[in-house]
């Protein structure tokens, strides 16, 4: 979780009008009211799915559009970046609408913070695995309201009591008079009805869509090439732009010579922008050739010039001293001093790139009185405000078309809207003469910063004579993601950035004496949240160290954890389920071993058991991962399974072989030959078990990631006796 987001609103650079909108959206949500007014069916260009006859469609409320052809389109306020949000949110609304799944469509909503704010952020934006959680009640009510309006319209037309009308699978019926109508036939009349103020939502037992395996709405478009990503936007006469950026973070342009670049056929213009020097051309090939021909001198006086090894050495020194307090209970120092046995361990975590498969891109069409932007937009309110500021426009003059994103993993959610602002700056520098399509190459991406920060952890823990964990000291050293951003006031308290320590300062385990401390360091290297944020490193340190302690205490790792979870039934339930399904404690074939890890993130609970072996070349091979997840009501069980599978693949790739390192401030890696995600040959079998639940649903995009690293590391120990504490594994082991 990004804890501070809950019920708090960030301080963004918004004009007064937008702040009021934020407030209004928040108040409406807080009061639990439905935004129930009729809107004209204007809308953005089809974004997610083509919607037939949108021009004649009506909107009973801000989230649903019903067309005469009987299609029902849900407006999705969140970004579809692979997590299945278009399918998940549509399921919730369709359930209360009593629609037929085959008639459902989805479309990204326009930017409108008043209507489409993330109710946990107060701004329109996607992140922190909040999409389903914040939309659950809102979209149920939107569906129920639209249903009631359809029923009222039918009652009026048929002159029968509304109470005698039923709705099922997209058909409104009155049994006594044997009449029925499809939604499309009633839509226009329904839109004229007054939205109801008292809504009765279904009992969970009456759900017919929620909890079922429904086909994803985007699968066909994504298997035929029809799905439109930001990269696929092609405006007439648009110029492709690539940017020469400094090779050291924090450097700026001193001077440049564009003579040779402009001589490259197809290159149209070369302009300086705050981020570097942009080359504009009639196509990507000419743009990149032009950039190669460019000569830029950089001012590196404020640049990072250290190597990552040197930075890490400084982190290690800091870890020997007390840091800012992130969690404290009892007296950790005394407990350690009096313990029968004390263990210590230090961990290194590298910078990580998000490397979404779709390289960053943004298309901008700038006119004197307004601007249109096409991109896989994740932070709509923030991006609109930042783009407007750079262009010298008002936010309401900026129209953003949100397209499918080819992955993000956090990269598109920057508080400074970095790549969007870059595209706007280029459009401005060229006077808006032609639309600009900014494309980052993969090298730009891997070398472009906004990494998961590098961290060093130092832990000490004490066991009493009976093997009980009595003292715990955990020090974390690394850069802050949010200091210096508009989110600082909300998320950084008393020198502790919540995103640096989440997963470490909220342990579920009953440890009487704890001290969790943080050292925050500064560097020009830009850092950012990366799928599961703080839990990417805290879960690894905590869960592998617990495993060491269990072994030192002579206890089974599952039993050792379980004994400390008496007050945490949901943690215990996923741990018990994964142990049962993985056959924990049962014999394995020779040469194979298991490890377990448990972690809560974003209010979802996940436990995993990994089985590892060594292949014929002695390389560590993860054969199988069994995963148990409790994310409340499982809205789309197959999407949940897919997110656990994918999270495991994503997390496994990182702990095995991904790292960004610096030599004299310059990034050593550049593309997928040296920044190496998991490929199919190393993907384990994954079994996902979902805990049945009636609790409000929580996120699944991120929580599958944190446990896999420590589960695998613990299995590697069980197999080889080696503790890997410096990531990635490839530094110490053959993988």
């Amino acid at each position, binding site marked *: 979780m990004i804890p501070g987001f809950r019920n708090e609103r960030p301080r963004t650079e918004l004009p007064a009008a937008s702040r009021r909108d934020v407030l209004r959206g928040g108040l409406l949500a807080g009061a639990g009211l439905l935004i129930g007014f009729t809107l004209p069916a204007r809308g953005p260009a089809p974004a997610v799915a083509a919607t037939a006859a949108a021009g004649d469609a009506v909107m009973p409320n801000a989230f649903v559009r019903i067309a005469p052809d009987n299609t029902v389109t849900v407006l999705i306020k969140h970004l579809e970046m692979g997590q299945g949000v278009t399918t998940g949110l549509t399921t919730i609304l369709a359930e209360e609408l009593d629609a037929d799944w085959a008639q459902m469509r989805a479309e990204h909503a326009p930017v409108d913070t008043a209507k489409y704010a993330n109710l946990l952020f107060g701004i329109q934006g996607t992140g922190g695995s909040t999409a389903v959680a914040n939309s659950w009640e809102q979209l149920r009510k939107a569906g129920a309201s639209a249903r009631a309006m359809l029923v009222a319209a039918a009652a009026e037309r048929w002159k029968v009591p509304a109470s005698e009308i039923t709705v099922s699978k997209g058909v409104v019926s009155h049994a006594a008079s044997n009449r029925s109508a499809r939604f499309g036939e009633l839509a226009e009349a329904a839109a004229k009805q007054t939205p109801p103020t008292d809504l009765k939502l279904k009992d969970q037992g009456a759900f017919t869509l929620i909890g079922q395996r429904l086909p994803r709405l985007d699968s066909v478009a994504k298997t*035929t090439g029809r799905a439109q990503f930001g990269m696929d936007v092609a405006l007439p006469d648009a110029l492709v732009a690539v940017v020469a950026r400094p090779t050291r973070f924090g450097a700026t342009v001193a001077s440049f010579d564009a003579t040779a670049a402009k001589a490259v056929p197809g290159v149209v213009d070369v302009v300086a922008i705050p981020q570097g020097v942009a080359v504009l051309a009639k196509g*990507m090939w000419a743009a990149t050739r032009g950039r190669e021909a460019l000569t830029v001198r950089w001012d590196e006086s404020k640049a990072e010039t250290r190597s990552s090894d040197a930075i890490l050495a400084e982190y290690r020194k800091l870890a020997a001293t007390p840091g800012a307090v992130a969690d404290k209970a009892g007296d950790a120092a005394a407990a350690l001093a009096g313990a029968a046995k004390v263990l210590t361990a230090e961990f290194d975590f590298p910078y990580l790139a998000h490397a979404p498969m779709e390289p960053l891109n943004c298309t901008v069409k700038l006119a004197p009185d307004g601007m249109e932007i096409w991109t896989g937009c994740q932070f709509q309110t923030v991006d609109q405000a930042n783009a407007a500021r750079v262009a010298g426009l008002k936010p309401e003059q900026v129209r953003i078309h949100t397209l499918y994103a*080819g992955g993000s993993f956090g990269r598109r959610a920057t508080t400074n809207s970095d790549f969007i602002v870059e595209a706007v700056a280029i459009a401005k520098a060229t006077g808006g003469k032609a639309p600009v399509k900014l494309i980052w190459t993969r090298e730009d991406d891997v070398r472009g910063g906004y990494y998961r920060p590098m961290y060093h952890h130092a832990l000490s823990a004490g066991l009493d004579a009976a093997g009980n964990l009595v003292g715990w000291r955990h020090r974390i050293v690394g850069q802050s993601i949010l200091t210096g951003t508009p989110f600082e006031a909300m998320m950084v308290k008393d020198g502790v950035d919540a995103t640096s320590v989440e997963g470490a300062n909220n342990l579920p385990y009953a440890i009487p004496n704890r001290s969790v401390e943080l050292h925050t360091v500064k560097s020009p290297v830009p850092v950012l949240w990366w799928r599961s944020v703080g839990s990417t490193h805290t879960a690894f340190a905590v869960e592998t160290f617990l495993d060491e302690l269990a072994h030192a205490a002579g206890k089974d790792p599952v039993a050792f954890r379980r004994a400390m979870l008496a007050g945490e039934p949901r943690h215990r339930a996923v741990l018990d389920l994964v142990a049962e399904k993985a056959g924990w404690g049962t014999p394995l074939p020779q040469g194979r071993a298991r490890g377990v890890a448990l972690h809560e993130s974003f209010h979802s609970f996940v436990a995993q058991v990994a089985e590892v072996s060594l292949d014929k070349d002695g390389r560590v091979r993860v054969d199988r991962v069994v995963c148990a997840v409790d994310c409340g009501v499982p809205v789309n069980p197959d999407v949940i399974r897919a997110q656990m599978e994918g999270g495991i693949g994503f997390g496994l790739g990182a702990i095995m072989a991904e790292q960004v390192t610096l030599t004299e401030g310059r990034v050593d890696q550049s593309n997928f030959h040296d920044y190496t995600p998991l490929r199919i040959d190393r993907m384990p079998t994954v079994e996902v078990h979902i805990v049945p639940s009636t609790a409000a649903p929580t996120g699944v995009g991120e929580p599958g990631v944190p446990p896999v690293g420590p589960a695998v590391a613990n299995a590697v120990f069980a197999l080889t006796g080696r503790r890997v504490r410096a990531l990635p594994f490839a530094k110490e082991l053959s993988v």
Partner: protein
Amino acid sequence: MARLTINGEVRDVDADPDTPLLWVIREQVGLTGTKFGCGIAQCGACTVHIDGVAIRSCAMPVSAVAPEQRIVTIEGLSPDGSHPLQKAWAALDVPQCGYCQTGMIMAAAGLLQTNPKPSDDDIRAEITNICRCGTYNRVRAAIKLAAKGAGATQEG
């Protein structure tokens, strides 16, 4: 000037001979189902077929393709998404973000040309495309489903 045969149509394009086939397909022919992912033939998002063989178009100069060679992109794999692999992909809901999936399907189609019944190990050895979403197990299942000729049926 280059002459190409793409999805059965002859197209004349004006491109520098060194231009990667990928950018000609995307920018000049306007077929955007073939994706840019790395530019160095590492990830496979740009996979197309030339005379039935899967190749990575981001690292192939347009001048290396002869006019009579048959280039097939995802848009030409089937007229309506009915190729057994596309049906299997949809039946198992393989895609997440979806960006790599068209290249993944073209790589799988190339594999099935030479090995109609690949084993799990064959797939692990031959499919080297990168998917950051981690859809690999469903990719493997969908290839096997298509190979069984049961692309239209669902499996849990």
